[in-house]
């Protein structure tokens, strides 16, 4: 399994958001994408997730070109994502949200639901069982019949993550998962992400502002600034990298902390 | 060739009227994101207001004629009455559900429309009422195309009202507040803009313009009836969408365009299919420009 980004550029009208960014994500790693505001992180994230088409460059997943594929095929390419501000199906129950996550797994046609065939019932039962399994694993089982809108913020985040996991996609794209969490919750988030990678063998690519979450959980980092890649490597090297400090804190500060 | 000129003139005059009503739809949509179906009926009540002002002034409505001054005397009170009616409808039918969904606001608007047209039928009787004519019988000709004074008057009055509105929206404090609220409700309220007042003002302006359109149609066609609001409402709503809903110049452009499309389509293809042609053009335009000609990415 390999996800590689090759010289991706993106311009909205005259504004160049990304300029020739390339990197690749090894299987099973937790990969971080960071950079100051307006660096192009979210745009790159949305290009990988299929929301935007890049102006130039390509994205390869196991050798297959993704950049011009419609966004609903990402799941078939084993890429799932979450959203910065939670996008749940508010009027559907917690269980229904998860079952929709298995949309591409369910094969039985509509007619069979009309005639209530055995095969259809078996598939629905399997889907419910699988969903319940995931819900119990993440402690939401007792909420299964509640509409998603009535869950507290933290649980909605977990529900969205569970829904992304139930798609059994190899790669999980997390869009600022720590947004709005206090440090206790972000601590639990770090263990959660590690558990997904270790127990479920998923590859994680996340975009995040919260530096202590990034430094604790990410194994490799790419830093973007003004749409260009200015650094790549282990978190501890990145902390000391001159360009990164300059990008975040400005040249004067970078010179003073000459290390 | 003159036939084409004649049709264009007819189209422009009708277009001016659609534009005036369409502005009401667009202004309300710009702020509350729902389509005020009762707007067509306010246009009808504007025409009836003018009818009562004329009878009150003792003008002979049956086949009579009025001077420009009498027209203006009737115009002002009708516009004010419609403005007041617009505010009242907003206050009772829409304010309670302002935080409800657009769907329930739309149904409430449909309900208000059914109520208004049937109440008017009950109060004023269903008969088609005669209205005095403005510039009766006077017309000037360009080649074989004849342009009646009233057609040009309708166009001129529509343009003047549109320009006045444009100036109002661009340069007055209330105008800026309306634009601010339509752009971002939350931010506008944070800036201390009184939402209720702005929304009432929007309804007042939109309804006043619809009232003006009503009185002009009254004197142009010299007849009014309680159910005239329905069809005109749908046409004006189509014009507002064509121009790009939520955008005032778009409503003006959409109205004029729809008027021309209808009259050309009616003349050159077939009068029976006139409305169908207008809708086909609308659908094609929308597929090409999903948010209307001047519409921003609002949908």
């Amino acid at each position, binding site marked *: 399994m390999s996800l590689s980004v090759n010289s991706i550029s993106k311009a909205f009208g005259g504004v160049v958001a990304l300029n020739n960014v390339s990197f690749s994500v090894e299987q099973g790693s937790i990969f971080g994408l960071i950079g100051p505001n307006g660096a192009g992180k979210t745009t790159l994230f949305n290009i990988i997730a299929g929301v935007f088409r890049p102006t130039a460059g390509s994205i390869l997943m196991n050798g297959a070109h993704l950049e011009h594929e419609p966004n609903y095929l990402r799941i078939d390419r084993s890429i799932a994502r979450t959203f910065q501000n939670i996008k749940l199906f508010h009027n559907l129950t917690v269980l229904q949200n998860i079952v929709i996550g298995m949309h591409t797994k369910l094969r039985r046609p509509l007619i069979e639901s009309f005639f209530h065939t055995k095969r259809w019932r078996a598939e629905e039962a399997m889907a419910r069982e699988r969903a319940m399994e995931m819900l119990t694993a993440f402690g939401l089982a007792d909420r299964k019949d509640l509409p998603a809108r009535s869950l507290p913020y933290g649980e909605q985040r977990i529900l969205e993550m569970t829904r992304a996991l139930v798609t059994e996609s190899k790669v999980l794209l997390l869009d600022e998962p720590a947004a709005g969490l206090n440090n206790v919750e972000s601590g639990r988030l770090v263990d959660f992400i590690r558990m997904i990678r270790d127990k479920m063998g998923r590859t994680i690519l996340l975009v995040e502002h919260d530096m202590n979450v990034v430094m604790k959980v990410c194994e490799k980092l790419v830093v973007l600034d003004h749409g260009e890649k200015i650094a790549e490597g282990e978190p501890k090297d990145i902390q000391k990298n001159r360009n990164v400090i300059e990008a975040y804190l400005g040249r004067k500060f970078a010179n003073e902390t000459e290390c | 060739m003159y036939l084409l000129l004649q049709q264009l003139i007819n189209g422009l005059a009708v277009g001016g009227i659609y534009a005036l009503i369409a502005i009401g739809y667009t202004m309300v949509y710009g702020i509350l994101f729902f389509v005020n179906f009762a707007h067509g009926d306010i246009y009808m009540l504007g025409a009836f207001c003018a009818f009562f002002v004329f009878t009150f002034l003792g003008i002979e409505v049956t*086949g*009579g004629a009025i001077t420009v001054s009498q027209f203006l005397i009737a115009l002002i009170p009708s516009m004010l009455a419609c403005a007041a009616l617009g505010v009242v409808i907003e206050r009772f039918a829409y304010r309670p559900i302002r935080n409800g969904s657009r769907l329930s606001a739309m149904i409430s608007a449909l309900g208000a429309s059914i109520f208004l047209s049937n109440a008017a039928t009950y109060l004023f009787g269903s008969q*088609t009422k005669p209205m005095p004519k403005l510039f*009766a019988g006077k017309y000037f000709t360009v080649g074989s195309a004849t342009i*009646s004074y009233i057609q040009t008057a309708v166009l001129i009055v529509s343009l003047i009202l549109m320009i006045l509105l444009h100036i109002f929206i661009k340069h007055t404090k209330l105008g800026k507040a309306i634009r601010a609220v339509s752009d971002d409700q939350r931010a506008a309220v944070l800036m201390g803009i009184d939402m209720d007042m702005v929304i009432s003002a929007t309804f007042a302006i939109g309804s006043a313009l619809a009232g003006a359109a009503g009185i002009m149609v009254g004197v142009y066609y010299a007849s009014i009836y309680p*159910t005239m609001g329905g069809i005109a409402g749908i046409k004006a709503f189509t014009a507002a969408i064509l121009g790009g809903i939520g955008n005032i110049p778009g409503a003006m452009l959409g109205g004029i365009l729809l008027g021309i499309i209808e*009259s050309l389509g009616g003349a050159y293809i077939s*009068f*029976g299919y006139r*409305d169908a042609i207008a809708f086909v053009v609308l659908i094609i335009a929308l597929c090409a420009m999903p948010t209307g000609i001047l519409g921003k990415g609002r949908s």
Partner: protein
Amino acid sequence: MLGLRKIYTVLTLAILTFVFFGLTSSIDAAETITLGWYGPTSGAAAQDGQEGRAGAELAVELVNASGGINGKQLVMIYADDKSDPKEGANIATMFVSNKDIIGVVGPFNSSVILAAAPIFNRGKLCDIGWGVTSPLITTAGEYIYRVAPTDAWEADFISKWIADEGYKKVAFLYENTDYGVGMRDVIRKSLPGYGCEIVFEEPYVQGQTKDFGSIIASLKQAAPDAVFMGAIYNEAALLMTQARDLGFNAPFFGTDGFFSAGLLDLGGGAVEGARCCSAFFTETASPVVREFIDAYVKKFDRTPGNWAAQSYDGVIAYVEALKKSGASTREEVKKALDALGPFEGATGINEFDENGDVRKDLVKLVVKEGKFALYD
């Protein structure tokens, strides 16, 4: 808020109200004769519907004042069909299932009676249309009659009049309804038959078209000697005013759709010289018509229009039939109507033919000094 209980109550309540509704039937059936009347008292043709209802109300009042029918008082049940065929079917079923009703007068729109006809035929209940003029109704069923003259007959009458006046090139404008289209199909044969040529033909949308500018422009190009309009008075008045405004002065011909005070109110000076025909005319000598007009003016203090007279005659047809035969059941009423022969009403001498259509003579009218006058 919601509860199981509430759901059941709401759904079952809706059903039970109907069950109750169905069981009730009107109370005193013995001493009265009950007829049904329906027409568009609201909706697009509300004005003609309300005029028709006024005519029927007047008929009931006059009949009851003069001792009713064979000693029994006449009771009329009114219903509004909003010119909608679906409502027509509902009302027809309502009348058929109300056992007291032995005859029905109505409606105004041809499409409504066509929707109601199968129900009346099945229920063996006679229905006399007071405003339906489409030729289709001739074959709408044996229980369907009408007092309004058919478009075919009027279109032919006017075509002959146009030819006699020596106009050769004729333009025909018609509303896009069964009334207008019915007439178009007739005049396409009748006008050439009388030696006239149709130089221009165009439909418009009844009730919606307000701006006739483009039609008038095409009219001026076709330059006909006369214009024949299959239209009712509001669009006719509008078109004539706009035509005069735009300098088009050919004479206008119309059928009974023209004949209404509304044409004079809306048209004003522009309708001067417009010619039409009508079965009913106020300034006639016949005492019966005079009596109707005076009673109408006394009750509603406005002169009756064509549709008031037709609706009045619809009721009179039953009254005459019942007086002659003493009928009191639906079958007897059917036989009585077939055997009725000529009867005099507000629109002169009426007589049903074997299809239930009516034969009555038409009067030529012209607008002179803002009033309808006999055309000699």
